[in-house]
């Protein structure tokens, strides 16, 4: 059982934001980095498949610069066997279709039984890389999977629609599945596992031909606040008192 899991190091903003000089992205100094939440569920699912099969391999892939290896190390600490990081300067700020192109050649060469991606990344929320990757590999795919049962030459999966309705889908395998949060409970990496992950191999590759980008960010900006919320001042007691008044007034 060989599973490729695609992971991403995501950036999150705190209270403050500054932009890069060309305004096309946030200044990296203002971002905190972590393994994308959806990808930790995808990694856990890949590990469970390998464990259920009794043998096999989980290969973690990422597209990113050397700093992005931190997220990869997290996946390795959870139990992925090895990592491949794909990078060239052309991939900085790339759109998801381009990221899928960068991944496709490497994923294809691994000939996995299954490819798992997170549904989306928390920083860009395009929900696109997995389906684009499937197309480039000419593989079937299901997006937003909340349950996975592997059969012989196919898998039965739950596809979670809006409103919580679940579509039970039979998908031919190999396939690309994008994994939704809540499908499992991702394991914590122990300190020992984190230390051991430092020793695991991360191979670095250059992407093949990327083609024209599917999109380019022209400018990022802080959204206009609009009317915004009327902020309640004071200590917790004052805030609570005001909430009580508001509830009484608005419930009438």
């Amino acid at each position, binding site marked *: 059982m060989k599973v490729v899991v695609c992971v991403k190091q995501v950036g999150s903003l705190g209270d403050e934001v500054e932009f890069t000089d060309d305004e096309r992205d946030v200044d990296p100094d203002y971002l905190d980095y972590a393994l994308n939440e959806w990808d930790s569920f995808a990694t856990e699912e890949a590990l469970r498949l390998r464990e259920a099969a009794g043998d096999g391999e989980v290969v973690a892939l990422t597209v990113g610069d050397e700093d992005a290896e931190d997220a990869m190390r997290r996946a390795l600490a959870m139990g992925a066997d090895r990592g491949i990081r794909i990078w060239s300067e052309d991939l900085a700020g790339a759109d998801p279709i381009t990221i899928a192109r960068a991944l496709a050649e490497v994923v294809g060469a691994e000939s996995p039984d299954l490819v798992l991606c997170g549904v989306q990344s928390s920083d860009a929320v395009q929900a696109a890389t997995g389906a*684009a990757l499937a*197309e480039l590999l000419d593989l079937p795919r*299901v997006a937003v999977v909340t349950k996975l049962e592997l059969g012989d030459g196919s898998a039965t999966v739950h596809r979670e629609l809006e409103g*919580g309705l679940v579509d039970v*889908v039979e998908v031919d395998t190999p396939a690309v599945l*994008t994994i939704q949060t809540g499908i499992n409970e991702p394991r914590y990496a122990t300190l020992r596992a984190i230390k051991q992950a430092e020793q695991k191999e991360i191979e670095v590759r250059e992407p093949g031909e990327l083609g024209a980008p*599917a999109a380019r960010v022209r400018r990022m900006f802080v959204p206009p606040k609009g009317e915004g919320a009327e902020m309640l001042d004071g200590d917790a007691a004052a805030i609570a008192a005001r909430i009580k008044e508001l509830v009484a007034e608005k419930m009438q």
Partner: protein
Amino acid sequence: MKALVIAEHVRGELRPVTLELISAAKSLGGPVEVAVIAKDPSAFTDAVNVDGVHEILAVAVEQDEFENDVYQGAVEQLIAERSPQVVLLGFTVGSMGYGPALSAKLGTGFASDVFAVREEGGALVAERSFYGAKVNGEVEFPGHDRVVLLIRPTAWQPAEGAGSAGVTEVSVPPAASRARHKDWVEVQAGDVDITTADFLLSVGRGIGDKENLEQFQELAEAMGATLSSSRPLVDAGWIPNARQVGQSGKTVKPKVYLALGISGAVQHLAGMKTSGTIIAVNTDPEAAIFNVAHYGAVADLFEVAEELEKLF
């Protein structure tokens, strides 16, 4: 710009996002064509025949319900025959399965979760959010004469008014569907219907620990509110699905929505932003929930909860 809208339906019902896509398409000023891909397209053609639609393309397929390969094959053919400059799909679970694939295959421009579009000097510009909706971005598609966009549900008002578009039947070859619909599983009904509650006290990741949930359940009861939550608490198994507010949960519109420790992911906001009065308490002054809240407080939710307990 000529736009092709792909209608969405599930279990025999047209999804509301379809009419929003038509509004987005109309705003681009060119002809609007709406494709209905279904076993019996005529079941939906009247519903999409609204003011501003120029032509309805009825594509009959074998499958009752959405399947990736079926939709992708049909839309590829429609793009080849109709040459739209913009293809509009909903930013929905269905479109996530084939929209990006279309773009990868055809080499088009692409963006998803788009909430604004316009034409600037003949080129398309789309707006979307980044970094937990704390930042917006203008996205351009240099070198592309065709762009696939997945449009954020509820970003546009639904198109309305009777239309007079003709219906053209388009025949497509049967698709070899590699991911097949088998069955539906309903959401567990649960003990409450949060969609009918007038007052929701909604808790999020900020409550930190499962053991804290009881305190908020009690607070909700004391205040006469129904307890609901954002997705992470459901994922963690702390609270049943039936109480989840958001795109993958319930869409609610209570008189008062009191959000404690909810940062306001786009998918959550989509499920509650039309509530009568939204009051949000969060420690992060930049939390996206404050963009839709009517009243906000930057405070520790446990301290506020403790004070509320004294008052109710």
